[in-house]
């Protein structure tokens, strides 16, 4: 039912794919299912004999299964090189690290740009709506297929942090530690509002073609770029923008037109243009929707404590950043309150940083130190990795 194969030879280092055939469909919160399901993932390090040193890394909205080492297709370094690598906090010499592309993504896991077996063409909008819970269910299938009964830790920032909370809620017996960085247990109206701007930008692009752009040989690049620009602002703090760009101009004098006069405009345009080369517009729609639908307390009548009722044995560690206004500290505090009420072991650190939401991806020594200490101490209790 499950087949694992190395990707094509020119991507030998790109990781692997696991295919779940028709007898193992991914059941979705929407009531539908995805079958067959391909999960593209990458591992670092080796699983020990006790199978007790596995850490699942959950990626954020537009990232992928390559947190460390050189990215096979972009040639860029991994998105979490500061955290993942030999001798680092998440260390392949000690841990067996797993990172998989989320369901709905566009980096090899089944998503709207995958071929729909029913039609032989890309799913497009025929792809079913997905949730954070669906992403986690798919990861749980992968982890099980890799022969791991219980993960030493699940770690993630931003949307990855949402997955971490979902893991602890849905599979508490399969998680020893849950590390949730710069995230929330639900999307706020402000979060939803920014995502809606992005989606509207994509859908307003004539090349979006109702989601059928692949069949028409076009891509809604302008819309996707604008979506990225809007989102990127939310990842930065006002202080970071001020420090990086101020009101500096691109060249001497104003253009009296609508070119990128200011450096910050040029920077955002660059962010937008470089994004469209690596990301699929429909994936962006589906994944932002999944984040907007995320409300861990909703199935429990709005009582977040009940979402963690079975998670009293999980060791939680939450992090927020002082200048993160996308998932501000107050959201982590809501989660903490619920964890305390559920009797879970919860730790929390608010890291002082002026880098905004993006801080979770950047070199924040205080984050590395605290997370490293937490994991090392947990490993002593766990007794193995």
């Amino acid at each position, binding site marked *: 039912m499950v087949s694992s194969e190395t990707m094509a030879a020119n991507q030998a280092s790109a990781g692997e794919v696991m295919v779940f055939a028709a007898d193992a469909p991914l059941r979705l919160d929407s009531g539908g299912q995805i079958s067959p399901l391909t999960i593209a993932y990458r591992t670092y390090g080796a699983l020990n004999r006790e199978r007790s040193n596995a850490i699942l890394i959950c990626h954020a909205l537009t990232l992928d299964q390559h947190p460390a080492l050189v990215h096979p297709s972009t040639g860029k370094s991994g998105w979490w090189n500061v955290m993942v690598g030999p001798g680092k906090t998440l260390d392949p010499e000690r841990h067996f690290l797993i990172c998989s592309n989320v369901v709905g993504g566009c980096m090899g896991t089944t998503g709207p740009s995958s071929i729909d077996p029913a039609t032989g063409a890309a799913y497009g909008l025929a792809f079913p709506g997905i949730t954070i819970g669906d992403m986690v269910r798919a990861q749980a299938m992968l982890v099980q297929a890799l022969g791991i009964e219980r993960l030493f830790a699940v770690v993630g920032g931003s949307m990855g942090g949402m997955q971490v909370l979902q893991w602890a809620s849905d599979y508490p017996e399969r998680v020893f530690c849950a590390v949730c960085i710069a995230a929330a247990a639900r999307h706020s109206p402000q979060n939803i509002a920014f995502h809606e701007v992005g989606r509207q930008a994509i859908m307003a692009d004539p090349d979006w073609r109702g989601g059928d752009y692949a069949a028409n040989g076009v891509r809604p690049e302008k819309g996707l770029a604008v979506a990225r620009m809007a989102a990127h602002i939310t990842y930065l703090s006002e202080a970071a923008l001020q420090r990086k760009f101020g009101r500096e101009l691109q060249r001497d004098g104003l253009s009296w037109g609508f070119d990128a006069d200011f450096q910050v405009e040029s920077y955002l345009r660059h962010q937008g243009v470089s994004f469209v080369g690596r990301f699929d517009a429909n994936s962006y729609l589906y994944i932002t929707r999944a984040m907007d639908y995320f409300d861990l307390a909703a199935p429990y009548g709005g009582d977040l404590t009940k979402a963690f009722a079975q998670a009293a044995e999980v*060791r939680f560690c939450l992090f927020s950043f002082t200048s993160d206004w996308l998932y501000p500290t107050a959201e982590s*505090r809501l989660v903490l309150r619920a964890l*305390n009420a559920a009797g879970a072991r919860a*730790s929390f*650190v608010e890291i002082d940083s002026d880098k905004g939401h993006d801080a979770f991806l950047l070199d924040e020594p*205080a984050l590395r130190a*605290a997370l490293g200490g*937490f994991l090392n*101490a947990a490993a*002593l209790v766990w007794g193995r990795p």
Partner: protein
Amino acid sequence: MNAGPRDDFAEISRLVRKGARVLDVGCGEGALLELLVRENHVDGRGMEISPEGVSACLARGLSVLQGDADRDLDYFPAMAFDYAILSQTLQQVINPRHVLGELLRIGRQAIVSVLNFGHWRVRLDLLAHGRMPVTGALPEPWWSTPNIHLCTVRDFIGLCDDLGLRIDACAALVAGKRARPIDPRRPLENWRAETALFILSRRDRNPATTDEAAD
């Protein structure tokens, strides 16, 4: 001359029942909490305002929340702990009355140590020099001290009475000496005790049965 942290901690460890649920508010780098986990096998949590302190606690394997005693005790549901501990911190909070009330909302009992401003040395120092005392227990000048709400043992008892709290036990702590059980309402103790350690519970609840020393 001040009762050092060790004296304070040893006495708290002596008082806390084995296997109890404990919250240490203002836990610093986790020395007391670690002691209680190791010696008393408590199910311990900490709250600490400084990220460095929290980080140090994490490295010790302790579950600690970064938070402010003045603001963040509402993180915890009522009666979540057998003991809520506030060790030599009450005089540093902005609203001691609120914090004390919160400790006894979330804990069946509170263990609170109080620097006694009524100690004879402090009184003598003030009388002799007419300036805010700078002693071993109060080493900072008035304009830089974190101790913004100093009180005497008698003052503290007054607040406990106001809040409807029962004093289940009290001990005087002096550096290097064994804690001495005292009746804090005796006027003499307000002269003699450098630091007083109180075990408190709420009068409107049944007397706690857990205030005896751990064996």
